[in-house]
């Protein structure tokens, strides 16, 4: 029987290399492994940890850190985080260096130029998906739309917009209005 830390390290290193599209795209796979195959936690605990990781700031790979922390304390957190980050980062490091080494080659120039519009489209899609997830009614739609306009057409610090959103959300709750 493998130790729990070893199991966490192994599971998340595999996820790290399989996570094309980031942690959110890998969530179903992590669920299948941690809840389904390994029976390390139940569905409700998994859902709660995902929500916690998304409530806290930072990249969504932290869902691995939250699962590690739940399973094996601070040691679990460290192992899960490193396992989720290191393998893919080493690949990125190698890829980045290879591309710079051949940066004058036509193939690399064409490849980079080809990937850029796809990244732009995917970023816009993530924005829409986030807006849908945050949508609880008229006010949240208005906040998203207002923030989009402020970011697109002004150079105002986005923190003002986020603080305004939080205050509006809180105030509406206090006034008994739905968001």
């Amino acid at each position, binding site marked *: 029987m493998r130790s729990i830390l070893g199991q966490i390290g192994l599971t998340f290193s595999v996820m790290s*290399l*399989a*996570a*094309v*599209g980031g942690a959110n*795209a890998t969530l179903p796979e992590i669920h299948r492994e941690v809840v389904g195959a390994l029976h390390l936690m139940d569905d409700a605990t998994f859902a709660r940890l995902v929500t*916690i990781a998304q*409530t806290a*700031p*930072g990249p*969504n*790979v*932290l869902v691995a850190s*939250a699962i590690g*922390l*739940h399973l094996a304390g601070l040691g679990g957190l460290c192992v899960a985080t490193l396992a989720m*980050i290191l393998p*893919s*980062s080493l*690949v990125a*490091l190698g*890829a980045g*260096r290879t591309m710079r*080494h051949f940066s*004058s080659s036509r193939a690399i120039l*064409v490849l980079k*130029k*080809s990937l*850029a*519009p*796809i*990244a*732009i*489209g*995917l*970023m816009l899609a*993530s*924005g*829409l*998906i*986030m*807006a849908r997830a*945050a*949508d609880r009614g008229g*006010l949240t*739609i208005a*906040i998203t739309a207002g*923030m989009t306009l402020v*970011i*697109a057409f002004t150079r105002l610090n*986005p923190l003002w917009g*986020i603080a*305004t959103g*939080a205050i509006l*959300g*809180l*105030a509406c*709750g*206090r006034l008994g209005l739905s*968001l």
Partner: protein
Amino acid sequence: MIPASPSPRQCATIVSHRALFTAFFKIGVLGFGGVTGWVRQIVVEERGFLDDREFAELLGVAHVLPGANTVNLATMLGDRYNGASGAAAALLGLLIAPILILIAVVSLYDRFAALPDVQGALGGAAAATAGLMIGNAYKMVRAIRRDAAAILIAGAAFLAAGVLHLPLVATLATLIPASILAVAVVERRR
């Protein structure tokens, strides 16, 4: 083959370990509900590490590699300016505060998460963060607006991922060859 010499612009941009750490620290700590919206805001607009075209290209590479996009971007950007230790500085900056906050949130979550005030504030902030993302994506669209083929590919990627919710691997497997073909054809005509 001579190793790629950095372009004049890259030479002109000196980015220290400290600058990498603080930029990604800010991205990490501010990124409620995902960090992607903040990355362009800080890397392009606030710090000027990259211009819009370079950022879109690097983000494109970060997308096709395994792992989280922001983590990949931090690694490649840090390495580009300061080697492996630069990558480590950017990654540490990105992750250190969120991990400490995560530990705090885990212990506080059950007590505070159900409070209506907290729910309301988080809901409002999440809606604004979505706007941050869309606004930044709009600026990137604006940067490629004269390139009809690029707009078409970006539109297809948006439709596939945002509206039709197709699996990412299928989307990439279709769009990358299409985009390469489009770029190659346009370049040949020049």
